[in-house]
């Protein structure tokens, strides 16, 4: 039995990314070959991600991404209610940017496949440079269509539609300061919960004191996120960046994200350190232990919907090579990134401890995330 969330398949801006600093220039031709590894909480996920971007003529740029997750899971959810599993997710994206005057138009298509989940998304965005290219405004729309299946029931097929509306603004403030702001509203409609996941409720007839039943989520969700970033050039050639994001949705989740990072070049090396702090309140229909079966209209016990604090510590080292070019390659970098992710759950309990029902200690996730990638510009 598999445990996964039918999550967002956006990639809307994986290909378009942040609004370009200068809207009337197409992104550089580049290729990135990345290996990623997530290891924590009994879950190991690794695989490659390859991104290639190439201009054709002066006004068109193509981009393609191939991404794989190889999942081996014995997570806290799996060990308490199911059996460990392995799974593979394959995501493919293609996109195109078209530059005309100060305007860049982008389209992209993404497909994500698992044995019991398919998602397709179609994105369109327009970026416009204004005020002597001090300002770049980006409008984006994306439509996602999900198909959710069950590996143990061939007749189970559910659908969900998702629409993204995004407005991004990149603003040069001074000769040392650049800021970015992004407002994104996402609406979901359809089958939004995980078909395998269960909630637990008090059941005195069960010797362990509780039983499980299927989760039941609302069929709609609308969320709004507002994010702002500011990056400042320090006098001795280094950069410091601050970020903040506010998030709220119709499920009652409210969160704040803050981050600060520092980038310091040293010869051919560039080092970056970053700290990210995330807090969220729980969804209205979340409970770790419901008082009885079908106690509420909607119910969920996904720890992602619970109240928690997440902290992330990052170290990154990049080394530039071929700085004078070699053949058709202009330059290259090799990069190593390590992220330490710590999540302290407030009301998601660790049932593996064998403590009294409802008095189990809160669960804590401690994960290491590794990225090794090489980039070429040509």
């Amino acid at each position: 039995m598999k445990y996964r969330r039918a999550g967002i398949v956006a990639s809307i801006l994986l290909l378009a990314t942040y609004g370009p600093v200068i809207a009337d220039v197409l992104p550089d031709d580049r290729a990135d070959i990345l290996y990623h590894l997530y290891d924590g909480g009994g879950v190991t996920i690794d695989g490659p991600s390859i991104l290639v971007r190439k201009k054709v003529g002066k006004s068109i740029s193509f981009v393609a991404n191939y991404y794989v997750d190889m999942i081996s899971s014995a997570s806290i959810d799996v060990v308490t209610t199911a059996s460990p599993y392995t799974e593979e997710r394959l995501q493919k994206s293609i996109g195109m940017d078209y530059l005309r005057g100060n305007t860049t138009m982008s389209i992209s298509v993404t497909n994500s496949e698992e044995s019991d989940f398919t998602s397709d998304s179609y994105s369109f965005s327009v970026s416009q440079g204004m005020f002597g290219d001090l300002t770049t405004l980006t409008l984006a729309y994306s439509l996602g269509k999900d198909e959710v299946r069950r590996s143990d029931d061939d007749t189970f097929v559910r659908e969900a539609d998702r629409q993204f509306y995004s407005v991004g603004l990149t603003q040069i403030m001074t000769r040392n300061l650049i800021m970015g702001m992004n407002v994104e509203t996402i609406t979901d409609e359809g089958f939004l919960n995980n078909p395998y996941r269960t909630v637990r409720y008090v059941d005195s007839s069960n010797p362990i004191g509780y039983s499980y039943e299927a989760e039941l989520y609302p069929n709609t969700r609308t969320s709004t996120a507002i994010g702002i970033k500011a990056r400042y050039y320090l006098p001795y050639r280094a950069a410091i960046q601050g970020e903040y994001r506010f998030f709220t949705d119709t499920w009652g989740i409210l969160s704040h994200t803050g981050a600060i990072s520092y980038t310091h070049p040293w010869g051919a090396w560039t080092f970056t350190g970053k700290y990210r702090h995330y807090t969220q309140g729980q969804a209205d229909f979340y409970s770790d232990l419901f008082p009885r079966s079908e106690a509420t209209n909607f119910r969920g016990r996904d720890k992602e919907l619970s109240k928690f604090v997440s902290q992330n510590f990052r170290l990154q080292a990049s080394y530039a090579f071929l700085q004078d070019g070699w053949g058709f390659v202009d330059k290259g970098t090799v990069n190593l990134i390590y992220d330490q992710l710590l999540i302290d759950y407030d009301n998601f309990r660790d049932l593996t401890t064998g403590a009294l029902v409802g008095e189990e200690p809160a669960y804590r996730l401690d994960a290491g995330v590794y990225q090794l990638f090489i980039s070429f510009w040509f």
Partner: protein
Amino acid sequence: MKATLIFRLLLPILLLAGLSACGPIEPWVKPYERDRLADPIMSLDPDPVSTAYIQHVFEAREGARGGEGSAGGGCGCN
């Protein structure tokens, strides 16, 4: 709800359009003064493939989504 949503999205555009109607805005940072901003260390997103990946990692484990200028995707794989 839809009308509110559309209004929210259009508001910044209308504001900017209003600003531009007041007359041409002179760039207060001239092109020749943008050498520091053009330094690779000043990029808001220097490694898109890496950014998309780590945002996917966060998105799969947190309730929040979007608003960061780029987004990952796919299953949460909890």
